[in-house]
């Protein structure tokens, strides 16, 4: 089978650590172009390899590739995706798919018009454990869902090369981690009905946020996301029959299943000998394989534009209705400043 000619746009940490190491050995893809504003970074990555185009202008790869991975700063996802899709190039765009639902809609429409695959890097959907939770809920193992409690927080350690993650146009922890967390919530439990949103930004970008949510199916709960605190890092969902809890961040996270009223619980990591998902990179590989399969088979990918859009619309609603988190140790004058 012919390899798909692929370009990578953005040669930052995720490309260096994940996409490039996978793709350089891939039988499905052939890396034909690398683009980064920092051309030296792109060159050093591609050094010694047969790559047709290494450029600081991603537009130059048009004509050299059939598909693109877009891993640039978040606020550029939409514009670059649209340009690629308009030129008939299939797109895997990192999360968040875009900063606004309106941009998502345009991307979806362009993909449709140009017969392109558009998929979003919501890699957590590929976790066996997270797929198991989806199945457990859909099959009624938990009964009707009553409540949920999601705590997703680590002390930030992403090897950011620049301050882009702190720029206002990029948004804070809700915009960067939120797409993963909220995507899982919406995927597992359906659409939301109401949300109260609180965060700690004061003229910059939030490092902590809290969402109090009621879902359309009637259940309610809390989502807390942080980049300055080590939170529990699990998602807990309680139904009328049972509670399920799954790890948020590490590869192959443990799942705990407990029937209400029972003391004993089932606890452990998912087992799948053919595909053990021991490292995060294996999940990223599956995501790329799914991208390739959708292109070759001309079918809808697991996470298409419509799916990617759901969490973006949710995040927009949150930011529109933001209130200040109650943090008493900041002192009495915080409220006067608010979000400045």
């Amino acid at each position, binding site marked *: 089978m012919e390899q798909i000619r692929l370009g990578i746009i953005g040669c930052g940490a995720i490309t260096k650590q994940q996409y490039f190491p996978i793709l350089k050995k891939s039988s499905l893809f052939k890396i034909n172009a690398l683009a980064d504003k920092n051309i030296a970074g792109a060159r050093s990555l591609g050094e010694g390899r047969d790559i047709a185009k290494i450029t600081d202008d991603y537009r130059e790869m048009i004509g050299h590739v059939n598909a693109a991975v877009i891993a640039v700063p978040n606020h550029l996802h939409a514009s670059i995706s649209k340009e690629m899709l308009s030129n008939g190039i299939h797109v895997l765009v990192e999360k968040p798919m875009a900063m606004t639902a309106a941009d998502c809609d345009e991307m979806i429409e362009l993909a449709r018009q140009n017969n392109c695959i558009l998929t979003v890097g919501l890699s957590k959907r590929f976790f066996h454990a997270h797929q198991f939770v989806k199945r457990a809920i859909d099959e009624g193992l938990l009964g009707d869902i009553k409540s949920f409690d999601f705590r997703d927080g680590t002390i*930030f350690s992403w090897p950011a090369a*620049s301050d882009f993650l702190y720029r206002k146009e990029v948004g804070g922890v809700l915009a960067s981690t939120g797409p993963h967390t909220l995507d899982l919530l919406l995927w597992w439990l359906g659409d939301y009905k109401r949300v109260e949103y609180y965060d700690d930004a*004061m003229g*910059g*970008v939030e*490092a902590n946020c809290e969402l109090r949510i009621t879902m359309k199916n009637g259940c309610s709960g809390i989502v807390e996301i942080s980049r300055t605190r080590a939170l529990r890092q699990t998602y807990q969902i309680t139904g009328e029959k049972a509670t399920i809890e799954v790890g948020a961040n590490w590869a192959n996270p443990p799942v705990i299943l407990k029937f209400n009223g029972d003391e004993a619980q089932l606890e452990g990591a998912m087992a799948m000998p053919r595909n053990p998902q021991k490292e995060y990179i294996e999940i990223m590989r599956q995501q790329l394989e799914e991208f390739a399969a959708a292109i070759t088979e001309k079918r809808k990918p697991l996470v298409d534009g419509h799916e990617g859009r759901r969490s973006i619309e949710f995040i927009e609603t949150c930011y529109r209705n933001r209130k200040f988190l109650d943090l008493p*140790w*900041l*002192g009495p004058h915080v409220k006067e400043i608010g979000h400045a």
Partner: protein
Amino acid sequence: MRNIDLSNQRVLVTGATGFLGSRLVEKLIIDHNARVRVIIRNFNKAARIARFGIEIIKGDVTDPDNVDSAVKDCDIVIHCAWSYSDKHNEKETKQSNIEGLKNILRAAEREKVKRTIFVSSQAVYPDREKGYITEDSARRYTGNVYPDTKLRCEEIVRSFSEKGVPVVTVQPTTIYGPWSTIWTVNPLMRLKKMYLALDDGEGLCNAVYVDDVVEALVLASVKEKAVGETFLISGEEPARWKDFYGAYEKMLGVNSLVYKDPKTLKAHIRWQKFFESGVGKLLFPIRQVLREYPLMVKGYLLFKTSVGQVEIKKEDPRKPTRMPNEVIFKILQAKAIVKIDKAKRLLDYQPAFDFERGMAMTETWAKWANLL
């Protein structure tokens, strides 16, 4: 302390990703309306201060060019940056702390910055067994890298002060409160999973809540009488170490403080030093085995039952005991009280948090930070 309005002042904060620097940035903006600029090495740690609309310059205080561009057009410079060393890089760290300070002071002199504040430490006063510590107490080199480097830096500050550069040295004591790694986060994490051995716990901890230190830094930046002076900054009254750690024990709802005969602690320190010495290093594997066991408790049974009373009977043998090292032991035994009269007189400094209030606020934060 809202009456100090810095809305027309550009303030450079170095060390702004650290726990004191971050709180300083927060308060400069929330309470004093200042225009804040920071120079940071590492973006990973900047999430807390990126919540504000501040000017972030990527750079290192040891690079004179970085410092020049950071100091340019600033009215006030507050130098909180400090590199901590481990045993392997003591010399380099000392040098980089000194170089960093010199770069800041040289740039401040050239740019005619109105005020530069150097954050030193109470640690420059080595005599702390009894009596009072004031800014007139003896400061001298002890051979320990941290206090010695701070002292060397204070001398550099003085030499610039003598040239007419408006500088102030602030010497905080034991700073606790939200995000304090050494005096809040670590004690909570340790007390959660191990015993912490104290002597009788009657020694005095000159504790100060982080917000009070920040206010002192702001006062030092604006008060005319502060120029060229040095100020000790502590809480109104010291706490006993048993009460200091006891406050964390209470937050956690654990019973993890154990009190040991000073002779036992000293014996342990001797062993510790032996294991760090040339011969002792050869015995490293043995030490590791002992560590695997509830830390040194079992080591005592084997080696030192004759020295002092080893109170291991009431301790759960599965939970390790953390013994104080030489430096901590001295701190535990200290009875000297830090006087803050000079700061009160010249800066109008008045601590807003007594120990109870400071710890209550710390508890509110620690709960939110998922530490309890």
